[in-house]
């Protein structure tokens, strides 16, 4: 009897664990179902493609946020890093003197430099990167406004905008394809490579990692550099889709969307834990939520409230189930 009871208890627990594990996909399906019922315009090819296209840069950014969080850091400056890259590339392109390709490369390189700066500062100042990037965020903000002169920069060349608006074979959005490729690459790096393993180790227990012979400092800085690369790409995808760039709107705030997606999907704040595909699903949970509410005519402010409520609900779900089997 007792054996059976034990087994049952075990099963119950594992179902709970599975629910926690799949809470984001389940939430996504539930939200899609609800919005499909409530509004006939929701579940259409046009709208679903829209959701994908609109969240491309957020997904790419969230990859960066996830890597940084797994390594034990936090980056609040990502939004303004994007802003710097977006206005810089847009400004260069709008002059008409710089080619599309060199401008993009330069934008990405600048973002990598900014990311590396964050990582190096975190090491030099021996402070948590959340505080460090709170400072660098202000610096990047200033740089961005200096470049843009607080102006909206538009008149970008078509070749550039193709990156954000073009369709492969007439139907496949190019930016979604780019996003998919990046997500797969980052997933492989984090899940299958040696350096990915080291990133998890450095975030999980930095002292144990150091004593295990890993160069924790280098790993952490490298993560910030790589995150900069991703943020740069995200900035370009965003500017290319919008066809313009502006310091205040091209990026800022995205760091919190990224952190929200990460936290929702179980990326540990202390580092060392997290699964990329879940982060991406969480990005689209947030994306579907705001798209669906927009279709229903819910105003921006109630949307904020709903978003916060979803976050609290998912925290409740993930903390209710026992974490240790």
């Amino acid at each position, binding site marked *: 009897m*007792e054996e059976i009871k*034990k087994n049952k208890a075990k099963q119950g627990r594992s179902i709970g664990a599975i629910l926690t594990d799949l809470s984001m996909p389940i939430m996504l399906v539930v939200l899609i179902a609800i919005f499909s019922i409530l509004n006939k315009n929701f579940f259409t090819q046009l709208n679903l493609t829209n959701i994908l296209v609109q969240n491309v840069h957020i997904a790419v950014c969230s990859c960066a946020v996830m890597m940084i969080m797994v390594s034990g850091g936090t980056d609040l400056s990502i939004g303004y890093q994007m802003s710097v890259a977006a206005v810089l590339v847009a400004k260069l392109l709008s002059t008409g003197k710089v080619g599309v390709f060199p401008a993009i490369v330069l934008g990405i390189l600048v973002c990598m430099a900014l990311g590396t700066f964050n990582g190096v500062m975190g090491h030099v100042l021996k402070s948590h990167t959340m505080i460090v990037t709170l400072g660098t965020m202000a610096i990047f903000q200033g740089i961005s406004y200096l470049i843009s002169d607080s102006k909206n920069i538009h008149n970008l060349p078509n070749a550039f905008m193709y990156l954000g608006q073009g369709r492969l074979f007439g139907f496949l959005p190019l930016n979604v394809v780019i996003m998919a490729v990046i997500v797969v690459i980052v997933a492989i790096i984090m899940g*299958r*490579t*040696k*350096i*990915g*393993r*080291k990133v*998890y*180790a450095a975030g*999980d*227990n930095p*002292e*144990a*990692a*150091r*004593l*295990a*012979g*890993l*160069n924790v400092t280098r790993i952490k800085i490298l993560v910030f550099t790589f995150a900069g690369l991703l943020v740069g790409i995200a900035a370009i995808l965003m500017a290319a889709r919008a066809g313009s760039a502006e310091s205040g709107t091209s990026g800022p705030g995205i760091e919190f969307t990224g952190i929200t997606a990460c936290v929702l999907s179980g990326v540990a704040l202390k580092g*060392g*834990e997290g699964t990329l595909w879940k982060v991406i699903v969480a990005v689209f949970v947030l994306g579907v939520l705001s798209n669906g509410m927009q279709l229903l005519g819910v105003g921006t402010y109630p949307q904020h409230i709903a978003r916060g409520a979803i976050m609290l609900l998912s925290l409740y779900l993930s903390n209710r189930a026992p974490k*240790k089997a």
Partner: protein
Amino acid sequence: MRHITKTYPGVKALDDVSISFKKGEVHALVGENGAGKSTFIKTIAGAIHPDSGEICIGGKTYPHLNPKQAIDLGVAVVYQELIQFEAMTVMDNLFMGMEGIDGMFINDKIRAERTQQMLDSFHCNVRPTDLIRDLSIANRQIIEIIKAVIRKAKIVIMDEPTAAITVEEQETLYKIVKELKEKEVTVIYISHRLDELFEICDRVSVLRDGQYVTTVNITDVDKDGLIALMVGRELTETYPKKPPCSDEVVLKVEHLSGNGLEDISFELHKGEILGFAGLVGAGRTELMHLIYGAAKAKDGKMTLRGKELHLKSPADGQKAGIGLVPEDRKFQGCFLDKALYWNTSISNIDNIGKGPFVDTKEEMKQAEIFKKRIRIKTPDMKVKAGTLSGGNQQKVVVAKMLAPKPDVLIFDEPTRGIDIGARAEIYGMMVALTQEGNSILMVSSDMEELLGMSERIVVLHEGHQTGTLNREEFSQEKILTLASGL
């Protein structure tokens, strides 16, 4: 007179245990890890509710206690891992949650005076305004005890109070325990160090696998008898016989300085276990970190197999052929919420699989080899390290260090917090490693372990080397004298 009975059907962490504690006695609770000591004290403290059974305190019977109730009844626990407000002062910690010390507002003067009185009476040399996080572990424990006394505790439970403090501090602690006893306070004392029980305890109760074994007067039993009760069998030989090492010098350290140490010199032979003795603060761990490359040397020379070493990081140490099994398993050794295979491969990850990718099959294969080689007891190398017992976790840390195939292994407190049965296995593993050609540096605060395992012992005192003893010269007195710098 108290009488406590508890049964746990499901897990049976405690199986129908009844122990009575007398007023004003020092009552030791012993048993191997997992015997149920922690569960037992948690029930008294009200942290967990027993499934059945009852708790009698001062003539009243309770089916279970809540933390608040337990405190009101005069139960105070000094946990092994102290739970304190680290950024607050001594006096604020003492009076936290207490009312009636001053008025509506905090009166620091009154608090400081009262704190000073208490500190004086406990011979504790700290100021009321010191921050808790700046105090030594021993002083922090004393603060917890004072806290218990201020709250007029009738039962004080101490969970491994001497695990992390120096010999002199132990003496102070024993004195305090005796003073508590004079005040008619019941002290429940949990310890892995059996020697000290004979010094301070009146009676001792033994738990084994969640079951109550017996209670004896400390005068009616000796250490071997107590161990036999704990493990349920006679442990005739705790320390495995080790064949003598060769004369070949593997590691030579000459006039090494840095990281708080000065002028350390010794030689390590192939297949040798070289012990390092010293009090807390002698710099033993710091020395090991120097040798491993985790700290930078200022001066001196290290030669490994004829090659001079210039270590700048643990990675350099590993490359040179040195491995460290650190002192603190949880914070420096194990990745507790990662799988075992993940733990065993992380040090050697660059060599598992081609190019940038990890070869997970190869990784698992190597993990299985380690499982057999050093007998890690687990159904599966995919379980998380945190789910294993301390002894098995330690083996995982050893496996992690063995993966890069070192010549010299450093064991810093190899059996801290590991129960007696599992210790024997760790010792067996260490001897087996020396037979495979490894040489071992072993830091230990456990005198028996040092004497039983080492072939020679280097003694440190406050960063200086005060002696090197050969096996023939081994004696506790000698080591203690050297370690005290006398």
